[in-house]
C-alpha cells in the first residue's frame, strides 16, 4: 500500500512539476513590462474549479480504494455476493453518461431539439441508477448483509453511498441547467445561453468521471 501511495504522490508531483516547469524557469527580476503569460490555463473558472474538485475527489476515492485493499488482506474478510442488479445499474450509468455526451454535442451545435431529450434522459437514467443502488442495498439487507456484519459489507455501503452522494450533487447542477433549458432559451440573453452550454459540458465531464470511479469501484468489489 505504501508503495502505491508513493507512486501516486510522485506521479502527482511530477505532473505539477511539468505543468509549472516552463514558467518556473523565468527570471522575473530581469523582465519588465506587461507579460502576456504564454500557456495560461485558458478556460472558464468553473471549468478549472471542476478539475480541481475532481483532483480532490480522486484523492478521496483513491484513499478509500487503498484502504479497501489493505483491509481486505486481513483474515476476517468475508467476500460479499455480487448482486446481479449491479450490472444493470452499471448499464444505466453508462447510458446516462452517453446521453449527457450527446446533450453536450447538441448544445455545442446550438441544437435545442437534440439537447432537451438527451438532457432529460441523462437525468432519468441517473435517478434510475440511484434507485437501483438502493434496491441493491435492500437485497443485501434482506440477505443478512448489514453494515456491521463484515468490513466487506461495510465498505460496500460506504463506497456506494459516497458515490451516490457525489452523483446527487451533480444532479443539483443538472437540475439547474435543465430548469433554464425548459423555461426556453430562445428569449434569453446570450450570456445565459453560454452559461447553459458550460453547465451541460461540465455536467458531462463530471458524469464521465463518476462513471470511471464507479467502474473502478465495481471492479474492486468484484475482485474481492
Amino acid at each position, binding site marked *: *500500500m*505504501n508503495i502505491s*501511495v*508513493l507512486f501516486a*504522490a*510522485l506521479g*502527482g*508531483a511530477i505532473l*505539477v*512539476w511539468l505543468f*509549472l516547469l516552463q*514558467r*518556473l*524557469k*523565468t*527570471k*522575473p*527580476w*530581469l*523582465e*519588465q*513590462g*506587461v*507579460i*502576456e*503569460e504564454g500557456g*495560461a*490555463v*485558458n*478556460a472558464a*473558472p468553473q471549468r*478549472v*474549479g471542476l478539475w*480541481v*474538485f475532481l*483532483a*480532490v475527489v480522486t*484523492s*478521496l476515492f483513491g*484513499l*478509500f480504494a487503498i*484502504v479497501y485493499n*489493505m*483491509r481486505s488482506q*486481513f*483474515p*476476517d*474478510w468475508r467476500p460479499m455476493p455480487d448482486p446481479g442488479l449491479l450490472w444493470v445499474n452499471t448499464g444505466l450509468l453508462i447510458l446516462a453518461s452517453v446521453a449527457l455526451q450527446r446533450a453536450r454535442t447538441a448544445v455545442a451545435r446550438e441544437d435545442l431539439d437534440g439537447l432537451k431529450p438527451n438532457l432529460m434522459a441523462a437525468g432519468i437514467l441517473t435517478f434510475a441508477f440511484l434507485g437501483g443502488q438502493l434496491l441493491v442495498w435492500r437485497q443485501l439487507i434482506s440477505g443478512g448483509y448489514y*453494515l*456491521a456484519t463484515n*468490513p466487506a459489507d*461495510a465498505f460496500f455501503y*460506504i463506497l456506494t453511498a459516497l458515490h451516490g452522494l457525489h452523483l446527487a450533487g451533480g444532479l443539483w447542477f443538472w437540475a439547474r441547467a435543465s430548469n433554464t433549458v425548459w423555461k426556453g432559451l430562445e428569449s434569453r440573453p446570450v450570456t445565459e445561453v453560454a452559461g447553459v452550454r458550460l453547465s451541460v459540458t461540465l455536467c458531462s465531464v463530471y458524469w464521465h468521471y463518476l462513471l470511471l470511479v464507479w467502474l473502478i469501484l465495481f471492479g474492486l468489489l468484484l475482485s474481492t
Partner: protein
Amino acid sequence: MAYVAIADRDHHLHDPDTFITKYIWSQDHKVIAIQYAITAIFVGVVALVLSLLFRLQLGFPDTFNLVDPNQYYQYVTMHGMIMVIYLLTALFLGGFGNYLIPLMCGARDMVFPYMNMLSFWVYLLSVIVLLGSFFVPGGPTGAGWTLYPPQAISEGTPGIGGGIVLMLVSLAIFIVAFTMGGLNYVTTVLQARTRGMTLMRMPLAVWGIFVATILGLLAFPALLVAAVMMTLDRVVGTSFFMPEMLSLGRELDYGGGSPILFQHLFWFFGHPEVYIVALPAFGIVSDVLSVHARKNIFGYRMMVWAIVLIGALSFVVWAHHMYVSGMNPYFGFFFATTTLIIAVPTALKVYNWILTLWRGDIHLRVPMLFAIGFIFTFIHGGLTGLFLGNVTVDLPLSDTYFVVGHFHMVMGVSPVLVVFAAIYHWFPKITGRMFNETLGKVHFWLTLLGTYSIYLPMHYLGILGVPRRYYAYGDTDFIPASAQTLNSGITIAALIVAAVQIVFFVNVIWSLWRGPKADPNPWRATTLEWLTPDTPPKHGNWGPNLPEVHRWPYDYSVPGEKEDFIPQTEPPHAGVAAGRDHGVHH
C-alpha cells in the same frame, strides 16, 4: 487571455446594499477573511485557556485541583485539535488566504464568491459542533488530538459518548468548508490574476498560500476517510480499525480491524497538515522580511521551487510519526531518509531569509521583529526535527516532552509569530489605522522570551525521559525533583505569555477606534494590496480599472532609482535595466 476575460468581464459584482449582505451574509473576500479570522482567533483563545488549565495542573499538581484526570485529557485533546486545525489552518488559509489572494493578484474578488461565503458559514458550523461537545454528557473526547483507535472509542477514555462523535462530525464539516474555500483559492490564483501578473511575479505569500491549499485539498480527504470509518466503528459497530479486544474483562463485539491503518490515514493527512500551516507562514515571512529590510528577497526562484518541493515531499514522510508503531526496518529507513531530505529545501529557505537581511536597510518595526523572531524559533524547532527524524534517536525520545517542545517550537510558536507579524504588517491596510508601536514591541519581546522559557526547558525534560500525556508524575526513580521545579517554571512562563496577549488585544481594539489614520502604503511596499485606491479597500478592490503589473514584487533599493521601492504597477523606464544587471541582483 484568461485573466482579461475574467477580470474585465461584465458580471454583476453582487453589490451589497444592506447591513446584512455587507457584514453578515457577505460575499466580499475581505469581509469573509475577517469573519474567518475572528472566529479562528476566538477558538484559539479558548484553546489557550484550556492549555493554562492543564498547565496549572502539571506545574502545581496538588495545589489548584482545577481539573481531574479526565478533564486533563479532554483539555489536552481539544487544545491540540483546535490549535492545529480550527485556529492555524483556518486563520492562514481562510483568513489571510481570503484577504491577500485577490488583493495581491489584482482581482476584484474570489472567482466563486457565493461558495466562499458558504465556506465560512460551514466552518462556523464545524466550530459550533466542536465546542458543542463540551456540553454533551461525558464531555469532549480525551483521546489525544491524534484520536488513535482503539482507545479513542473504548471504555476508559473520556468522551466516548457524544464527545468523540461530535469531534469526528466537526472534522468532516470542517473538511467540507475547507474544500469550498480551497477550490476558490486555487482557481483564483490560476484564473483571476490581473494583466501582467505571471505566476513568477506573485509575491511569495501568495505562493505559500497557493501550494498549502493544494496540499490541504489532497490531504484532508485522508482525514475524512478516517473520520467516516471511525464514526461507523463507534456508532454502528463496524470493525475497520477496531481489533478483537477485551475491555474491563469483557470481550467486545469488534474483531479483526487494524489500528495501524488509522495511523497511516491520520498521518497521511497529518504530516502535510504541518506544511499546510508552515508554507503560508514561509511565504508571509518572506514578504515581511523583504519589505522591512528594503531588499529584494534573496533567491526568489529558489524560494518558489522550495515551496513546491516541500509541498511534494510532505506527502512521502508521514510514517516518521509512527516509528514506535512498528514497521518494516526498510520503511523506517525510507521515511527517515525522506524526512532528512525535506530539510534541504527548508534549510535553503532559512539561508535565503538570513541572506535577505544581510546588509539590508533593516527597519526594526513590529512586524519585522516578529518575522526575525520566527527565524529563531523556526531554526530551533527545525533542528530538533532532525533529531526526531532519525529512527534510533526517535525511539527513546518518542512520547516525551522533547517531542512536545519540538512541535510547539516549529508549528506552534513559529506560525503564531508569523500570524502576529502578518496582523501588524497588514493592520494599516485592513483597518485604515496604525497600531501602537510601543505596545507592539512589548508584546513581541515578552512573547518571544516567554515562549522560549516555556519550550526550551521541555527539551531538557524530554531528554530526562519525562513522558508526555501524564496527569501527575508522583514519585519515580528517573525524574528528579528538580524536574518538577522546571515544570512549575514552565507553567509560570505560560501564564505570563498568555497575559501578554491581552496587550495585543488591547492594542488592536484601541487602535481600531483611536489609532492614527494610516497612510495607504505605510511601509512603502511594492505589492498590489498597498496600491488600492481606498484604504481599507472598498468592495471590488480597484475602482474602475484593474491594476496592470509591470515587474516582480521585490524591486527594493534598485540602484539608480530615486525611491527605494518601485511598485509592481510602475511601467519600465530607461536607466533601470542597466543598474539591475550588475546591481543588487545575483
